[in-house]
């Protein structure tokens, strides 16, 4: 069942063009030069119930803007959004009742009050039945250890504790959809792992649909089966992680240690060669050559001591995608 439907979504911001420096800022007062920014530029996609979708892209790509439109806070410039059959800006309250949102850089918790007070308030705002509320608090205590700091004022919590608090807060009313905007930003590996496991558990147990934006691709690898890459407001990839690996992760690196440093290294089929002393790293395209081709070629010419093959990481693939716009060509 499709819970989110987006068709041809656009969001345009209009801002002043600001000139540089002191004189420039005075000029800005008198001229009205607008620049329009297409934060979201013709996006379409659908998401099924129970999916965990990674929504990734460089800073300013339009990820948060999309999420804000899905929550009904921002009005789309044009296009269709439906969340569980509701139009978020028209049925703002009803839509908000069955979604949960975490913005990693912000908090919905009451800064000066103990964590539990925020939970109590949310219970009333979302009209959560007492039984469900208690069960959830118990569950979050078990999975996120929030009971350790539930009576501490939020301003005294560490970032990891606060984030766990925020994630718990967003799930108190058993939402159908959970939007997580950089939920692991600035956290240590242990807390990150904890949060990933928790999201996974919730997704399996409750069939909660999760949309996750992050810059940490380990989050994506651990959680998502589907990834959407957005850049300059356009979705440039939408598919499985395996698929993206297969299509774009074809670059491998062969690391070779020689018995003695060769003066010069020439390998047919290498994309890039780096030689440092006795160690060489050779990049090649697995689609065109196999590692054994390369190895036999090199071993024939030079005395080899040791070798390893490294696959490119998902991180590396996505970085290539951002930098080179590899996907642009493959789509058009």
């Amino acid at each position, binding site marked *: 069942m499709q819970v989110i439907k987006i068709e041809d979504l656009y969001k345009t*911001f209009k*801002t002043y063009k600001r000139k540089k420096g002191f004189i420039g800022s005075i000029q800005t007062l008198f001229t009205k030069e607008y620049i329009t920014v297409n*934060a979201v530029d013709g996006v379409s996609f659908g998401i099924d119930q129970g999916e965990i979708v990674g929504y990734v892209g460089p*800073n*300013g790509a339009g990820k*948060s803007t999309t999420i*804000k439109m899905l*929550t009904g*806070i*921002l*009005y789309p410039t044009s296009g269709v959004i439906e969340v569980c059959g509701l139009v978020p800006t028209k049925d*703002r*309250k*009803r839509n*908000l*009742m069955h979604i949960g*949102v975490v*913005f990693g*850089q*912000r*908090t*919905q918790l*009451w*800064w*000066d*009050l103990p964590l539990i*007070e*925020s939970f*109590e*308030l949310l219970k*009333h*705002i*979302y*009209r959560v039945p007492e039984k469900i509320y208690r069960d959830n608090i118990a569950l979050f205590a078990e999975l996120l250890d929030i009971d350790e700091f539930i009576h501490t*004022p939020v301003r005294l919590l560490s970032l990891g504790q606060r984030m766990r608090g925020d994630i718990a807060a967003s799930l108190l009313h058993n939402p159908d959809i959970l939007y997580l*905007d950089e939920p692991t930003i600035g956290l240590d590996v242990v807390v990150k792992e904890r949060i990933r496991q928790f999201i996974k558990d919730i997704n399996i147990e409750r069939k909660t649909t999760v949309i996750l934006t992050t810059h940490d691709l380990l989050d994506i690898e651990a959680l998502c089966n589907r990834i959407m890459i957005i850049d300059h407001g356009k979705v440039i990839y939408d598919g499985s992680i395996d698929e993206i690996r297969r299509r774009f992760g074809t670059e491998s690196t062969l690391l070779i240690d020689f018995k003695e440093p060769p003066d010069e290294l020439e390998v047919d089929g290498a994309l890039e060669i780096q030689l440092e002393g006795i160690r060489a790293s050779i990049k090649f395209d697995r689609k065109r050559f196999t590692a054994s081709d390369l190895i036999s070629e090199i071993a024939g010419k030079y005395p080899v001591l040791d070798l390893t093959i490294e696959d490119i990481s998902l991180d590396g693939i996505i970085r290539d995608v951002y930098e080179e716009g590899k996907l642009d060509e493959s789509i058009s």
Partner: protein
Amino acid sequence: MRAYLEICKKSFQERMAYRGELLIRFVGIFMSFYLLYMFWKALYANSTDVQGISFHSMITYTIMSAIMGGIINIFGILNVYLAYWMSSRVRTGEIVMDMMKPTDFQLYLFSHSFGRLLFNVIVSVPIFILAVFIFKIYLPDSLGVLALFVVSLSMSYLLTFLIDFMVSLVSFWTTQNQGVGGFTRLIIALLSGAFIPLWFFPEWARNVLSYFPFASIYHVPLSIYIGKIKSIEGFRAISLQLIWIGALYAGSRLLWLKSRRKLMTHGG
């Protein structure tokens, strides 16, 4: 409705978190009372009665005005007004977290504000009692007058909330609203009778001003308190307050519907 009550409670608790700072404020508040006292004492040096108002009525008026300012949060001694809060929330994008609640945004903010009001009222009680002893401000003539004053003060609060709310919404259009906010507070300070009672204005100005919403904020409740506006006249003034509340409420809803669409939050 329960949700709004809870927001109100939390907002009250939040204010309590910083009660330690109150003592310092108290000192500042009484210093400002003393200045007001000296100011009017100098003006009243050669007469016991100006425009039919005795020195003591005048002191009562002016100190009650300062206490009121602290209660209704427009400016003055306790000073956390909505417009300022909102402007910083919009600038940092934090406003998103407030709008993402399945509540009516205006009522949500009102509940916040009302929690602060309750806190302010409680804090104002000892200030009031001390002022009665130190500056000899007097109590209302009768329980009826007191009741009328409380009703009128409640109206003042609603009026300031609505004005403050509309000023807040300016930040949806321009990000900053400090300019508009400062201007509004200045206008209120001058034309509401907060510092200079309206009876010191020329007659034509007084007549015009008494129909403005600003006069409804300070002039009406304070005049009721010191007994300058009595019975029927008091009810008439309160009716005018009510009319303004209705009008500003309608205006604020309209502005809110327009402003919602204007929100721009980049990043985060």
